[in-house]
C-alpha cells in the first residue's frame, strides 16, 4: 500500500516540486554554478526513486503534465524573442550572420565529434541541439528520435560549462566588444549563459537573451532539415 502511494501521481508531483524548491534554495545559498537547481532536483529525485523502489514508468506517467507545460513554454519563447527584437535593428546583419554561423558550427562540431569518437547515432541526434535553450532542444530531438533525457542533461551541463568558461575564453581571444561577448555567451550557453552575461553587464545580458532566442530558432530549423 505504501508502494502504491509512493507511485501515485500526487506524491510524485509533490516530490518533484519539493525537490525543485529544495534545489533552488541550496543553489541560492551556495551560489555554486555546479549546483544548478535542475541538476540538484534530478539528483535528489533519482536518489529517492532508487531508494524507495519507485519505477521510472510510474514517475513518467505521473509527471506528464510538465511535458505540456514545457511545450507551452517553448511557445512563450516566441514572445520573449519579440520583446528582444528591437536590439536586432542596430546590428542586424552582423548578429544574424554570427548566429547562423554559430549554429552551423555548434551542430556540426558536436555531431562530427560524436561520430568521430564512434558513439551511436542516437547520441548524435540527442546532442545536436546542445547549444540552444533546453525546451527548444528537447522539442527538436523528439520528432527525430533523440533521447530527451540525454538532451536536457547535456544542455544544462553545457550551459553551466559555457557560462563559466566563456568570459575567460573571450578575454583570451581579445573579444572586447560587449555585443560580441554577450552574443557568444547566449549562443553557446543559452539561458544559463544569459544569466551570467546579465551579471557582467546590461548590454551583454540583453544581447545574450537575443542570441539565445535567435540561436534557438535557427538551430531548431537547421537540425530537422539536416537529419531528415
Amino acid at each position, binding site marked *: 500500500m505504501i508502494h502504491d502511494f509512493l507511485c501515485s501521481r500526487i506524491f510524485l508531483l509533490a516530490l*518533484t*516540486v519539493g*525537490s*525543485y524548491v529544495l534545489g533552488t534554495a541550496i543553489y541560492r545559498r551556495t551560489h555554486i554554478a555546479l549546483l544548478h537547481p*535542475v*541538476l540538484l532536483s*534530478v539528483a535528489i529525485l*533519482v536518489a529517492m526513486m532508487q531508494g524507495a523502489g519507485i519505477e521510472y514508468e510510474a*514517475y513518467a506517467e505521473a*509527471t506528464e503534465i510538465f*511535458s505540456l*507545460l*514545457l*511545450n*507551452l*513554454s*517553448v*511557445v*512563450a519563447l*516566441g*514572445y520573449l524573442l*519579440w520583446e528582444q527584437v528591437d536590439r536586432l535593428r542596430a*546590428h542586424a*546583419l*552582423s548578429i544574424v*550572420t*554570427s548566429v547562423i554561423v*554559430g549554429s552551423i*558550427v*555548434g551542430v556540426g562540431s*558536436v555531431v562530427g*565529434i*560524436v561520430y568521430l*569518437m564512434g*558513439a551511436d547515432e542516437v*547520441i548524435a541526434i540527442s546532442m545536436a541541439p*546542445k547549444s540552444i535553450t533546453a*525546451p527548444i532542444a*528537447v*522539442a527538436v530531438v523528439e*520528432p527525430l528520435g533523440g533521447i530527451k*533525457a*540525454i538532451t*536536457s*542533461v*547535456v544542455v544544462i*551541463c553545457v550551459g553551466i560549462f*559555457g557560462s563559466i*568558461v566563456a568570459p575567460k*575564453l573571450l578575454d583570451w581571444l581579445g*573579444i*572586447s*566588444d560587449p555585443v*560580441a561577448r554577450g*552574443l557568444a555567451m547566449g549562443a*553557446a*550557453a543559452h539561458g544559463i549563459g544569459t544569466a551570467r552575461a546579465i551579471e557582467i553587464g546590461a548590454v551583454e545580458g540583453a544581447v545574450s537573451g537575443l542570441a539565445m532566442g535567435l540561436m534557438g530558432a535557427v538551430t*531548431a530549423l537547421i537540425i*530537422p532539415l539536416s537529419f*531528415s
Partner: protein
Amino acid sequence: MKGLLYILVFYAAGELLSRLTGGIVSGGVIGMVLLFAALACGAVKAERVREAAHILLSNMSLFFVPLGVGIIASYDLVAANLWSIVVAAAVSTLLVIAIVGIVQQKMGRRL
C-alpha cells in the same frame, strides 16, 4: 488567463501544422514562430500574452526536472558513450563561443 489561452491556441496550431508536415519540426517550435510572427505584425497585442508568457518562462526550469530524471532510463547508453558525450559537448561549446564572438566583433566593427 486570456494570455494562457492565446499560448494554448498557438501551441495547438503549431501541433496541427507539425502533423500536417510530417512531424519533422515539433509543434512547440512552430507555435513559437507563429506567436512571434503574430506579435511582429500586430495580429496579437503583446500586452495580452506578456503575463502568461512570463509565468511560464520563469518556472521553466521546474518543467525540465522530469526530463532530467528520465536519464536513469538511459543510464547504460550514457555510460557507454560518456567520453564521447563529454568531449563533444566541451569542444563544441568552446568553438561556438569563439566563432560567434569573433564573427560579431569583426563584422560589428565594420558596420
